[in-house]
């Protein structure tokens, strides 16, 4: 049995680290990874509250979050690949257009 303070601290830490990564880093690949970290932090919070109430809805919702994260990673990486074809740069400050 785990005291539910520490999972909440973990969720908070993962979310904040991911958010700092999205805001501060310029490499679009690292930014995508930071988004995954934020989603993971949200998952930890969902599972913690699912455990708190003894209700499985939180875990089911967390599964949907994982599915959405996978879809987001696939589309995001496809966009990165198509940008790299013409730009050869991962710096988001220099990305202003999606056309090639």
């Amino acid at each position, binding site marked *: *049995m*785990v*005291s*539910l*303070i*520490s*999972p*909440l*601290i*973990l969720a908070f*830490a*993962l*979310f*904040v*680290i*991911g*958010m700092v*990564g999205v*805001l*501060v*880093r310029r*490499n679009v*690949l690292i930014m995508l*990874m*930071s988004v*995954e*970290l934020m989603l*993971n932090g949200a*998952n*930890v919070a969902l*599972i913690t509250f*699912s*455990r*708190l109430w*003894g209700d*499985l*809805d939180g*875990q*089911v919702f967390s*599964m*949907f979050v*994982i*599915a959405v*994260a*996978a*879809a987001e*990673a*696939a*589309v995001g*990486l*496809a966009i*990165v*690949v198509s940008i*790299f*074809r*013409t730009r050869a*740069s*991962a710096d988001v400050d220099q990305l202003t257009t999606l*056309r*090639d």
Partner: protein
Amino acid sequence: MLSMLQAAPPPNPGTWAGSEPPPGVIARILGAVWDAMVTTTPADYVFSAFAILAIVAAIATVTRKNPVVAAVCLVASFFCVAICYVMLSATFLAALQVLVYAGAMMVLFVFVVMVLDVDDKGAADQPRTRSSRRGLYYGFAAVVIGILTWIFWGTVTRQFSTTGREVPSDFGTAQSVGRELFGPALFAFEAVSLLLLAAVIGAVVVARSRRERLKEALALGFSEDDMHIAGLGAADTEVARGDLTDEQVRRPHPAMDFGQPSAGGHEGGN
């Protein structure tokens, strides 16, 4: 929440020594930490160890310059979080975390990083192009983190020094989660499968190269006037006439040509 702010400054600083400290924010935080310490179980130690590892790996992910190293750190973080899921009696989610996050998605990340040939040189040496924005980003991050911390301590110090309700022994197994998933959440489940299908198709469409689109357009019998349907400009039709060498096909559109990329074409970095 408001009382936390109001209790923060001591009413009379002179009476601090020798008297009880006012029950402010610090006292509540210390009380919560003390409660957590006296109720620590072996499971808490396991959880804390892997939670700390997960946080360290997450910090490494955000700070590494090389995206490959960052991806490996992210895998480590996901594995540690999966163990934390087990400690929260979410065994099925733990397996899913390892399979989907640490398995599929990280392979995708590492694969893309390798294909793109990104390294830690390049943009890291250049100054940020619009450095005035940087303060804005940090300021926004600070404000959001402050709000989150405030809400977080407000909730943590009040009610969460508990291990939660008693749950049945099959809580969080594949069977019980599956019953929930294919019962009340069936519609959402089907919607998610549609979303994944759309994402796969979208990813394939977006990631196609100019050469592939050109080939498809020619195979479909587009005339040179109709090339814009395939997202190809007039400059591509001369490419379409001749042989499709790599250099011709990869050349940027004239209107979008921002000059030569840096030496070697590598721009990873910060």
